[in-house]
């Protein structure tokens, strides 16, 4: 096993780490960089609990090899709140109780943010399809969908009044 030196950007900060080539990006984030917000639910790309942005694209970090992160830009749940201010999606998830155990929540938030950046006015159907790769075993999804739809509406309002 040879260790590889990787240089990358995580939530805007340049980051260097050493990794074995078969290690997943998720394990690097959690075990080497202490960014434990991203979770491992399934390890096979079914549950979305490990969702991160890789060069602006939503991916499962459990399905990315650490060396593939070389020179890439990674954004995780830890970068979502800015200067102590929760992202509107995070605040809405709290206000509407769109979580119970919270294990899936980071993945849902990262995925929902990616949706609203592409489409500020998604239909409920579009939202449900977009979030189909994120599994939640507590909420029954309804509160999550409500929270995303409500946040989208509020963010559109703010854009109009801004």
């Amino acid at each position, binding site marked *: 096993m040879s260790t590889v030196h990787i240089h990358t950007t995580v939530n805007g900060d340049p980051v260097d780490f050493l990794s074995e080539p078969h290690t997943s990006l998720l394990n690097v984030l959690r075990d080497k960089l202490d960014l434990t917000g991203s979770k491992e639910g399934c390890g096979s790309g079914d549950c*979305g609990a490990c969702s991160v942005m890789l060069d602006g694209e939503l991916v*499962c970090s459990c399905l990315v*090899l650490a060396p593939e992160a070389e020179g890439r830009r990674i954004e995780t749940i830890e970068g979502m709140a800015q200067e102590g201010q929760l992202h509107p999606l995070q605040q809405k998830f709290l206000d509407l109780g769109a979580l119970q155990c919270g294990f899936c929540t980071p993945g849902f938030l990262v995925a929902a943010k990616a949706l609203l950046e592409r489409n500020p006015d998604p239909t409920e159907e579009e939202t449900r399809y977009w979030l*189909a*790769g994120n599994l939640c075993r507590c909420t029954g999804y309804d509160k999550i969908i409500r929270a995303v739809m409500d946040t989208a509406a509020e963010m559109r309002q703010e854009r109009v009044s801004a």
Partner: protein
Amino acid sequence: MTYHAPANVEEAISLLGSQDNAWPVAGGTDLLVQMRSGRIKPGAIVDIKQIARTMGTSAKDGGFVIGAATPCTALLKDDALCKAWPGLVEAANLIGSVQVRNRATIGGNLCNASPAADSVPALIAADARCVIAGPQGEREIAAAELPAGPGRTNLGKGEFLVEIVLPPREAMSSDAYLRSIPRTEMDIAVVGAGVSLSRDKDGVCTQARVALGAVAPTALLVADAGEALVGSQLDDSALAKMEEAVKAACSPIDDKRGTIDYRIAMAAVYTKRAAKIAYDRAGEGA
């Protein structure tokens, strides 16, 4: 295990040929899962995504070239490709979730050689060709010839899929792909049906190719199902003939996703629906 990201085809071939148990990887959405389960233990990973030819789509000689490592979602950004081959682009974008499709590729879908792969019947219906590079140079084979059986391909040592080539499209042609799954998303096809056809201005089908997934060890071209449609306006008798040909071609397995009888019955139903969609699409703007 070692990781390599060659910058060109020659380097990739040499790595695949020289490293012990080397595996090419594109999106990795199947390979990493199989590595984790212990089913595949690569000695070396050869990541082909840094090779310019494997990434992106382009128009060529009236058709299209799709780099083998192009993510499924990237296909949606090529308007001309979506217009000419809407069924293929849809099939690729039924696979997994957004997270998965941002990484997964139709090249990987083909080389993973699952009988239930969604994009493969659409590729076969489209008469797609595969450009394979290897130690002996490059060769081209039909998409239907690449999978050899569940999880097995006809790629030789040191070979890998570089590009998928879609042929020029005649006017009034289109395609469609449908799959049967018990859910609405994030599932594996119980049956997949791809149809690509051309029609004339009187609505008569002039050419048709029908391909099926999840009803045999590999995705199948059902030549006589396509022929049953040619010369018809997809009337009931032509569709009935097509359905008989489809049913006769199926040799599915019984498993938790569906019984043999159910798969055969659904293959006919979904092929008929896909044929009608392709026919309507081909007639748009007529």
